[in-house]
């Protein structure tokens, strides 16, 4: 980095660091992240408590079996005896009991639940009732009790997870896509507004008189990019600390994050270059939204499409095209959908795309900055003499 680029980047970092808005947004990001980590510990954490309202012919054995089985999955069962089946039903309807367990004179037990929400206690109760009924049938049929016990105690089939990292990787992919989208969107708008303000204030004219265009542009991109990454790091700090302290970082997250770094940095650079270029087309800062619209619309479209096409042919194409690969490729790597040739192609295209974006941005930036009086169109700037 040359002296002028470094000075420009330093100014961006120092002056932005002095703005309350930067610290407020970073603090909000940090607090939001802390809340995300802490709140689940207080809300819905620990054992679940479930209250059953029972009525009719429900045996003590059944209740004991349900209570014992539920305890194995950290659910505490409380039984509330209702006078009648209707009373038990009313307790459930009123929310005084979570579930009802009512038996008819023939010994058939029905589970009552207020809504059709699926909870683990229902299949547990169903299994206990099925087993109890089976025991009764076996006993009536004169089956040896030892056989009955063996049947009752049959262990469920073992479940083996063959890809233990997939869950973590998918969560990481989802998180990366959102983070990259938000980060690029915020930084792009920030740098475009900054460039337009410098143009409107004629600061750019003073700077162009003393510094090469590429130094001004690259310094700004480096400064803004560094600030964006710093903000994200501050926001991610609570998550990192929690995963380190609790040692519960999802498997695969570390390698996914490491392998995504190239696209994160490349994506930030490409988008900041293009956003700075488009920001220079504005004559007033109020016009930035319009001049940068093609970039933001493309970004939103890429984000939406990528959510549902990660493991399709469209996803493959998006993960190679430089403008979309920073959003899509890290997620495809995370879910293990990217092949080695695709990754290589994506890297090559990303590098080439960055160089092309830099050259294009320098040309437009240097020409557009000194043309004031109205909002410029990209093509007319490209067609005009330098």
């Amino acid at each position, binding site marked *: 980095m040359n*002296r*002028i680029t470094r*000075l420009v980047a330093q*100014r961006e970092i120092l*002056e932005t660091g*002095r*703005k309350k808005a930067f610290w407020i947004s970073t603090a909000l990001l940090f607090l939001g992240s802390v809340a995300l980590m802490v709140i689940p510990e207080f809300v819905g954490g620990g054992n679940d408590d479930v209250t059953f309202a029972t009525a009719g012919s429900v045996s003590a054995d059944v209740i004991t079996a349900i209570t014992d089985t539920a305890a194995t999955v950290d659910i505490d069962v409380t039984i509330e005896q209702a006078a009648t089946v209707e009373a038990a039903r009313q307790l459930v309807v009123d929310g005084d009991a979570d579930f009802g367990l009512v038996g008819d004179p023939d010994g058939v037990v029905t589970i009552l639940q207020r809504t059709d929400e699926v909870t683990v206690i229902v299949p547990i109760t169903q299994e206990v009732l099925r087993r109890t009924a089976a025991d009764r049938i076996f006993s009536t049929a004169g089956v040896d009790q030892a056989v009955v016990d063996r049947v009752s105690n049959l262990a469920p089939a073992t479940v083996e997870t063959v890809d233990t990292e997939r869950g973590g990787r998918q969560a990481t992919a989802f998180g990366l896509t959102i983070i990259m989208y938000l980060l690029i969107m915020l930084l792009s708008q920030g740098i475009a507004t900054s460039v337009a303000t*410098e143009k409107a*204030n*004629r*600061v750019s*004219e*003073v*700077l*162009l*008189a*003393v*510094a*090469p265009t590429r130094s001004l542009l690259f310094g700004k991109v480096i400064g803004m990019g560094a600030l964006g990454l710093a903000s994200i790091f501050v926001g991610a700090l609570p998550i990192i600390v929690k995963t380190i302290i609790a040692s519960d970082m999802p498997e695969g997250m570390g390698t996914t994050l490491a392998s995504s770094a190239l696209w994160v940095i490349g994506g930030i650079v490409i988008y900041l270059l293009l956003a700075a270029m488009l920001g220079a087309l504005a*004559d007033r800062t109020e016009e930035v939204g319009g001049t940068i619209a093609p970039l933001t619309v493309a970004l939103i479209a890429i984000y939406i499409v990528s959510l549902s096409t990660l493991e399709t042919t469209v996803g493959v194409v998006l993960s190679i095209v430089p403008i979309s690969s920073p959003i899509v490729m890290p997620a495809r790597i995370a879910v293990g959908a990217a092949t080695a040739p695709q990754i290589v192609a994506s890297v090559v295209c990303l590098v080439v795309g960055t160089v092309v974006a830099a050259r294009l941005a320098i040309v437009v930036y240097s020409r557009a900055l*000194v*043309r*004031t*009086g*109205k909002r*410029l169109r990209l093509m*007319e*700037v490209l067609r*005009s*003499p*330098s």
Partner: protein
Amino acid sequence: MATSSPGTSHLAPLAARSDATLTISGLSHRFGDRRVLDQLDCTVQPGRVTGLLGPNGAGKTTLMRVLFGVIVPDAGTITWHGQPVNPDVRRNWGYMPQERGLYTDMRALDHLVWLAQLHAIDRPTARANAERLLGELGLADRANDRIRDLSGGMAQRVQLAAAMVHDPEFLVLDEPFAGLDPTAVKFLSGVITGHVAAGKSLLFSSHQLDLVEDLCESIVMIHHGRVVMSGDLVTLRADSDDRYLEVDAVLADDELDETAGTIGSVTATGTRVQLARGADAGDVLDRVRANHRVRSFAVTQPRLSEMFLAALGDDADTDADPEVDPEVDAAREPA
């Protein structure tokens, strides 16, 4: 020495001065199909205040942008001490654009230090220069204020300091007097004369010709991107047909020869003599005093605006076109 463009045949074409620091030759530039600089030649000498004068849209700001490499001209050369201008040369120049040109969120001192560093000045020197300048410009107690919190006049002084913080050899000020009150004009004039008194070069632009005529030692008048008059102001005035000597004596029609001037009007109380081009008003007065008792006299010289209109001749359309790039309808020259 004086020069002119077509239409001002009494002035000789420009030749590069040997003592010039800056020499501009054949500079031309178009915005689309509009020519904004047209074979422009001029020089700037050290130790002299040079005014780049002309109406709005004459091409002054474009010329300054070309000087600083912000715009690449279609044709022409610019040399500094005889050598082509490059970024290293420009690093020793200072530029103050007409419109703002400052980060309003930055503190004044920080801004000046940062700009000096861009000019390759080390940080301690930059800070010392900035503090000294702020003190000289009466802003020492506002050094740590954000520029947006300063008044317009103070902000303009910071802008001036920004152009001077690296102690430039050549200072270029674009319309520095626009919008200033008389006190600020006097203050800025002092800064300008102080800069050239140190033997350095200075070029400033103005469309307010009469406002700056007492400040300029050399002028470059341009119109439609062409030089219509340039040179030493005293010489240019001496070469004018529009100078008069008024005395409270009645002169005969043939009393003065043509090298001195011609009798313009004679009244019962005095005579108005139109001085000949190049004639010394003092010598003419002495000749009159040889035959008459003169108790009161006055020399009337043309104002810069009158000289400008005279130089334009038939081309004196006073409605100068705004400097607009027809292709992008932009790149206008600020008023």
